[in-house]
């Protein structure tokens, strides 16, 4: 089944969501800057959000044949708020880390090992 020849549906959104998820994971794994890692987290969370909204949308699901109610949109709103709370704490932690290490390079966090 070729996505390119189809009208835009849930599957297309799932693919975009998966791309966002993978980009986020790669970003978290490769970025050495703590803020870069934070951006990766946001990408992963929004990839999941996109999936929720795509599954919940009745427009995408062929003229309301499969409505899932508003649950998907609701959980996406919750996730946005939680992501904001996490970002606030992330910035506090990063600032504090910078005060101690004079860098935001996470590779310097290697004191504890063994």
């Amino acid at each position: 089944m070729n996505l390119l020849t189809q009208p835009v549906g849930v599957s297309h959104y799932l693919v975009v969501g998966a791309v966002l998820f993978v980009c986020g994971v790669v970003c978290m794994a490769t970025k050495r800057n703590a803020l870069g890692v934070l951006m990766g987290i946001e990408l992963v969370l929004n990839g999941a959000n996109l999936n929720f909204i795509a599954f919940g949308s009745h427009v995408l699901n062929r003229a309301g044949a499969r409505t899932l109610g508003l649950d998907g949109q609701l959980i996406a709103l919750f996730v946005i708020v939680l992501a904001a709370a996490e970002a606030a704490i992330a910035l506090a932690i990063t600032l504090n880390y910078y005060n101690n290490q004079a860098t935001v390079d996470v590779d310097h966090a290697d004191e504890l090992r063994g």
Partner: protein
Amino acid sequence: MTTDSVLYLLPEATLAGVATLIVVLGVFVAWRAVWSWVAAAGLVFAAVFVLRFDGVADGGLLAGDAMASFVRWLVVGSGLLLVMAAARASCRTQTAEYVGSLLFAVLGLLLVASAQDLTLMFVGLELVSIPSYILLYLGGRGVPGKEATAKYFFLSVFSSAVTLYGFAFLYGIGGSTHLVEIHARLIDGVPSGFQLLGALALVLIFSGLAFKIAAAPFHFYAPDVYQGTSPINAAILAVLPKIAGIVAMVRILGVAMPGQSETGWHLALVVAALTMTLGNTLALWQNNVRRLLAYSSIAHAGYMLIGLTVAFAAQQTVDTVSQFDGLAAMLFYLAVYALATIGVFAALTYLGDDQRPLETVDEMAGLGRSRPITALAIAVFMFSLAGVPPLAGFWGKLGLFASAIAFQPGQAGGAQGWLLVLAIIGLLNAVVAAGYYLRIVAVMYFRSSDRPAAGEGGAGAWTASFICALLVLAVGLLPGPMVNASRQAATAARTSVQQDAVERAADVAAGSVPFSQTPAMNEPF
């Protein structure tokens, strides 16, 4: 009906109120010791409400079943013990936010305990995680503390995101965020075209929750973080997220996702075997006490996953509830583990002082003579964690191994033999684990030291560890009530996803539920 669930949520409301009060007023009141008492009072009130308004919730987002009340008791009890153990730290070195954040984490766990909906479950899980970052940030001292905070934060946020991604797929195939409806949809098998998404949802949710319980290969943060922070923070991180992860596993993976058990038991089996072997083997080489206990907590996560493996395998057979129920054994083990872990970290808190906690195993030398009662309590915890009869940990291990060995296959081929192998790996691990637990006991009693431990961690920590030791002994000598409670909890978790379905279907038919959830699936691929 709504009054019922409002009253049911009184413990959560109390804790939210008290925690907010502490965080807001903490700025203005200089006398810090008061906040531990306020927090303890809030938890006692919450416990009274849990007792009074037990299982009266209507359907909706909450499952007010025996599972919820078992976990709520465990959580409120653990919260009270943790507040006691942290009393000294929170009045000497910490701001009021410390104990406030602890209450928020307990509140999140209470929500997870009765969540029957993915939204509420995720909010509850985050409400456990976010305060724990603040606790780590406030509780850790110096460069190692900050490093531990940064490591834990980034990995934990990532695991939450992975869990959420899995939830999204589960929502897609289940057609709802409500676990009862997901179960009703999936009981006939995943709709065609969605098989891949079902397996993806299972693997992603399992991975995200495996991080919370520190199971391999997501365990590597635990030793670093526990070592870098204070003993009381280590206790919080070893207990609260683990309860959250196990409960979410029971509610979502254990009962609400039928039809995925084939993938499920293979995955859980490999992870369980890997986790306990890795944890126990690496613990043998450690000299830092908190690092050793971190590896021990990893190993215990592995034992608990035996229960999940049995539950997954049992989903495939005809009769789902046998006398040796995997989920019940897992919940019992969780409670026993929580008691012993809080106890041993509380004892370590007591043995240290404000400046420096007890760091290495060698520093515990001579405790048998200088601090006989604390040493005895630590010995009780070590024997319980090692699974020596007649202590509580023995019954926990017995239940788990018995559930794996006694597993009767219906038409599911293969699972029985592998579960037997898993039980044997578990037994071998228990023998290896005895090595490092007994080493601590031997150091305390058979080695002398000219520099005795400070023992300035405060009366609260001492009392908490003493109570834990008594409870471990009591459960060990009289395991019956708790075994029954855990068995009822597991049964309730199973039946409430099914029984509610009948009630909700009736509600939908009567038109009292505003949205209809019974459309035909059409093919997205």
